[in-house]
């Protein structure tokens, strides 16, 4: 018993001493002093302490670069254009950068360190992204695996966003998850609702954030949100909008449709295809069916790929791509300009992009949010 105790103490003590040594060396060696970050050619100049990653340094200064994986270098969302020479592309960046991005000095801000003065370029709208303190006011089941969460904003208590954008939910440590992490979710509420935001969150088995939302998050819990981010929003044209949503991908589309309806942009034809397996996967049907009644040019097409006998389903049946192709041929005006708005799994999006391009929509007019 004594030898077990001695051995544990010895290994523990030695590890503690060595850890302290690493921390001391880190604080001396990784001290790069004060450096300047020049953003968008003098638009903003930040004086910061060097040594940390660009993503962390910017977020400490209130500039939030989107990062769905929380800075672990796996989502590739935190890309920024670096105008200074900061050395070659790291092996951790290369798999997430396109050839063209590499040529244009686009880097992953979570992987590069701020060691000396640096100039970067970021989209102007990122200046308006903030970190919000918020409170969950309602959390309810939409389907067996999708919950709707309504979150009131406390500090700041107002948000401006474009319908279709997303925010990052800051998930605190729970159970075996020891660190704070962030995950991105599309806002389902309308931009006119300024003091709160809503999300549809589908349970991903083993997912850190979705498990937290489904099993741990309760009404009245305080939570943090970062955003808004994203370039998935309605383009201001007269083209017909062909929207396809799968599962919780309905969120940004609901926001866009609500926003258009509220702002009276009802002169455009809008087709919303909502694909699901069986009736138990469908939700918010009443909402869209009511919009369809009040808005002549809005067409809602829910479709089931595997309807169950007791679903008594009378709507469209088949894969959403097949239903989409059928509507292109039979119901839609062939001669009008069209834009595609897609949100769902990568497989669904890839298949829908093909159907849309086959039916004459130019690829650059198809906008999407892939769940990765």
């Amino acid at each position, binding site marked *: 018993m004594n*030898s077990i105790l*001695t*051995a544990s103490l*010895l*290994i523990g003590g*030695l*590890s503690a001493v*060595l*850890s302290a*040594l*690493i921390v001391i*060396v*880190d604080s001396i*060696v*990784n001290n790069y002093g004060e450096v300047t970050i020049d953003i968008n050619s003098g638009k903003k100049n930040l004086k910061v302490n060097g040594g940390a990653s660009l993503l962390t340094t910017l977020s400490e200064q209130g500039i939030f670069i989107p990062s769905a994986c929380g800075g672990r270098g796996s989502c590739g969302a935190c890309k920024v254009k670096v105008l200074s020479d900061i*050395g*070659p592309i*790291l*092996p951790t960046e290369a798999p997430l950068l396109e050839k063209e991005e590499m040529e244009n000095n686009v880097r992953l801000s979570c992987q590069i360190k701020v060691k000396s003065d640096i100039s970067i370029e970021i989209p102007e709208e990122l200046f308006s992204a903030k970190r919000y303190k918020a409170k969950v006011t309602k959390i309810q089941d939409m389907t067996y695996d999708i919950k709707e969460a309504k979150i009131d904003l406390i500090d700041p208590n107002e948000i401006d966003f474009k319908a279709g954008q997303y925010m990052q939910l800051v998930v605190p440590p729970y159970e075996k998850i020891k660190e704070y992490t962030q995950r991105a979710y599309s806002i389902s509420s309308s931009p006119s609702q300024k003091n709160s935001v809503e999300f549809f969150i589908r349970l991903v088995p083993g997912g850190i954030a979705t498990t937290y939302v489904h099993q741990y998050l309760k009404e009245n819990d305080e939570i943090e949100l970062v955003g808004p981010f994203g370039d998935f929003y309605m383009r201001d044209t007269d083209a017909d909008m062909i929207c396809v949503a799968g599962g919780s991908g309905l969120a940004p589309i609901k926001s866009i449709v609500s926003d258009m309806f509220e702002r009276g942009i009802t002169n455009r034809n809008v087709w919303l295809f909502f694909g699901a397996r069986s009736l138990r996967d469908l939700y918010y049907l009443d909402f869209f069916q009511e919009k369809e009644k009040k808005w002549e040019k809005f067409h809602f097409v829910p479709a089931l790929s595997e309807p169950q006998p007791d679903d008594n389903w009378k709507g469209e049946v088949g894969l959403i791509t097949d239903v989409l192709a059928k509507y292109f041929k039979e119901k839609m005006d062939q001669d009008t300009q069209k834009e595609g708005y897609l949100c769902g799994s990568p497989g669904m999006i890839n298949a829908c992009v093909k159907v849309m391009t086959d039916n004459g929509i130019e690829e650059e007019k198809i906008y999407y949010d892939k769940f990765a």
Partner: protein
Amino acid sequence: MAPDVGLISLFFASIFTSNILLSNFLGMCSFISVSKDFTSSNGLGLAVTFVMTITTAINWLVYNYLLLPFGLEYLRYIVFIIVIAAIVQISEMIIERMSTNLYMSLGIFLPLITVNCAILGVALFMQIRNYNFLQSIIFGLGSGLGWWLAIVSLASIRKKVDNSPVPAPLKGPGITLITIGLMAMAFMGFSGMLNVQ
């Protein structure tokens, strides 16, 4: 009882006659992988020498002043590895600060020094052979220099071989392993000149 071996003999023996790499075949994976490029080989050799010297000294102190008095010699493997891991972490920070280019070119092989068996091997030899503190430092330094000498030699030879007419089936790993074999045989020529076992 420390063996009766002179420090100078021990230093040269650990570089040449008992080269940790070419006599004991320890630390082969990074030896083969990194030796494609001379600059990286030189940097890794320097890093291994630094880590080997420091860890051998610290491990000697830990073994003699912590493990032996408490009768915990059986913990030497885990304790030696913890010390090596910490020193590698520190070296990584220092190299990143001092030379970003070297840090980049070493890539994954820098943290992998932690599991370079040559470094654990030197610590264990130091303990098995009952070296005293000074002998251990010299042995660690000599072995590190020996490893460095071996990898820069191989990198230089590979550079020559790259421009030589090698039969197609032997190109790449084949000719590299044959080269290493020949180098080991050449180093065997030193054996008998000094004995440190």
